[in-house]
């Protein structure tokens, strides 16, 4: 069997959720890049265009889910990489708290921005 390298302990909840969000992010990240660089060029993006896209409830919900999944996947990845590199004890708890707070703030800010774009705030 080939050698296997991963920062995650196989079978745990963190490992499982990382895979579930990965499967979702693969599709949505590719869609996001395609829509905002090839269909609509990034340099031509306007507030009116963003508002029009966000008016579509499906698009709005996908973007909010995209943010939540991305924030979780990223922060969970960083945390497990650090634990894998030997982070333990109190520093581990502090890092976890900082990452959870950072991800929480990112999601709150992102959802606020999304609601503003949709004209709901």
């Amino acid at each position, binding site marked *: *069997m*080939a*050698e*296997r*390298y*991963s*920062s995650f302990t*196989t079978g745990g909840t963190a490992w499982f959720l990382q*895979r579930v969000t*990965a*499967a979702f*992010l*693969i599709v949505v*990240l*590719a869609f996001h*890049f395609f829509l905002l*660089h*090839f269909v609509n*060029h*990034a*340099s*031509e*993006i*306007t*507030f*009116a265009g*963003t508002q029009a896209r966000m008016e579509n409830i499906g698009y709005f919900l996908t973007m909010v889910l995209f*943010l939540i999944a*991305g*924030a979780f996947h*990223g*922060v969970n*990845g*960083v945390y497990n*990489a650090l634990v894998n*590199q*030997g982070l333990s004890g109190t520093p581990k708890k502090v890092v976890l708290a900082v990452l959870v707070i*950072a991800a929480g703030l*990112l999601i709150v*800010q*992102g959802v*606020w*921005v999304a609601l*503003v*774009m949709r*004209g709901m*705030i």
Partner: protein
Amino acid sequence: MSQSYNRGLIEDFSRWKEFSAGMWAWIFHKFTGWMLIGYLFTHIAVLSSAIAAADGQTMMLAGEEVNAYTGTLQGLESLFIVRVLEVGLLAVAVFHILNGIRLLMVDLGVGLTAQDKSFYASLVLTGIITVASVPTFMAGVGL
């Protein structure tokens, strides 16, 4: 089926000449992951100019008065360095996606014997997609 290996200290990067394909894949995946989560924070910060725009704030862009969101995004897009960084971001994202698919397959036990080849395939495909996207990403911007 599970087997443990004494892999030594992988984090000792001075051993890079001994690294196998799987090890490089793991390091690249970690590196691109750090870049992507770092970018996500920056991305939301830039998009937050929508709050100012909805508030009626405007700015000057190329001698024209535009709202804060349009001005911020188009102002950034008018910079050559931002376009170069975007191509870099695309390369990082594409590799992370392709190698991520590879990792999901490894976890499902699919194609284990070809895991080194699929890593090389991820690298080559990332290169091709990135180069092919350069004209679109650099459209309408000059040094």
